[in-house]
């Protein structure tokens, strides 16, 4: 009979925690890029973009992430693509993040007074120059705090990928529980690790928010 010390549990959880961080990072970066593309399509007034992006955001915000993960997992397989839980999770989380980030940033762009658009247009700036030099920098300033806040939500959401078999912190917790029969300790450790990941980010986002309100 193998004995597991608390250190064994923690060490294995820490190793699995790298995958939680990796999945969060991929979803955040990928989601940011897709979200930015969607936002630009909207701001450029491409025909049908506002409506299309609106529906896209509604679909992802109006359904459980767990269902989106299942659909990515079984949906890709339907197309004959060999899917690992890793690909399915990365895809679903990226799309999920893109919808939220696009919506957050849309609010920030809309918070910029109309006059800024009009003034920059009257200076004969192109759409790209307007975004780059006038709207972008101002929107970015107010976007940072809610974006960091969303990062916390995203890190927590990656725990759902354990359900489709992606081995990250939560899944590792389940597997270690099955080996050690100490669910109380193991899940407490898992929770503390998520806390250690998320709490600093939460604090950071709150500080950004405060400094923005003061400014």
């Amino acid at each position, binding site marked *: 009979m193998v004995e597991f010390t608390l250190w064994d549990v923690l060490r294995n959880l820490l190793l699995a925690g790298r995958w939680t961080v990796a999945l969060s990072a991929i979803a955040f970066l990928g989601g940011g890029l897709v979200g930015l593309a969607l936002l630009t399509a909207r701001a450029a007034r491409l025909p049908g973009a506002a409506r299309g992006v609106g529906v896209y955001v509604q679909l992802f915000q109006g*359904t459980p992430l767990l269902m989106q993960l*299942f659909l990515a997992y079984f949906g890709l397989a339907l197309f004959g693509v060999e899917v690992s839980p890793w690909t399915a999770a990365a895809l679903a989380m990226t799309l999920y993040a893109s919808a939220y980030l696009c919506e957050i940033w849309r609010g920030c762009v809309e918070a910029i007074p109309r006059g800024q658009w009009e003034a920059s247009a009257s200076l004969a700036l192109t759409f790209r120059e307007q975004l780059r030099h006038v709207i972008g920098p101002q929107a970015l300033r107010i976007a940072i705090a809610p974006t960091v806040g969303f990062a916390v939500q995203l890190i927590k959401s990656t*725990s759902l990928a354990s359900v489709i078999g992606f081995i990250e912190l939560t899944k590792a917790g389940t597997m270690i529980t099955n080996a050690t029969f100490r669910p109380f300790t193991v899940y407490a450790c898992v929770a503390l690790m998520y806390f250690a990941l998320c709490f600093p980010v939460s604090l950071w986002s709150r500080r950004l928010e405060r400094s923005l309100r003061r400014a």
Partner: protein
Amino acid sequence: MIQLNFPAVLAEWPLLLRGAAMTVVLTAVSATIGTALGTACAWVRVWGPAWLKAIVAAYVELIRNTPFIVQLFFIFFGLPSAGVRLSPELASVIAMVVNLGAYAAEIVRAGIEATPRGQIEAAQSLALTPLQVFTRVVLPPAFKRVWPSLTGQVIIVMFGSAVCGQIATAELSYSANLIQSRNFRAFEAFIVATALYFVLAVVVRHVLQRLGARWLFGSR
């Protein structure tokens, strides 16, 4: 060529209906108790004694910075080794209440803190007890202010309840899993379940808005 077979899934409609009903019941029960818990916590964070404030602050931070699924697993798998054995349904409700309570505490607190000082002072000068001031003067407009956020949070908790199927609570996602294990139509089963969640969310939002307008803000 991809062939979708929705009739095979829709033929299991009693299962889907039962699952959706369970999701609604879980949501309704935990929304009610969770909001009450959140309101109590909000009161503590504004007017409570310092030691209780610290406990509530720790509770709120702990819940808001850990995933729901870990909270659920801790309650369902972890607590039995501490001598608390729970049915899947009860564990699900407790997890949802504890989760919503923390978020609702922050939401309701924001509403309470927006109360103008003069209103509280006016109520006090009318010799209302502190409890009366809180329940009659502070709370109703506070709820009115934060009702949309509270509604949104209830829907987030409902989406979170999809995870409860993992501990064999027979809710909507559990039904979908059961159906796909019977007829191997996984994609179709989850499409249907996802659509049902979407509809449920729209209905819940609508109902809560109506309830809020009727009982909270007068039926105008």
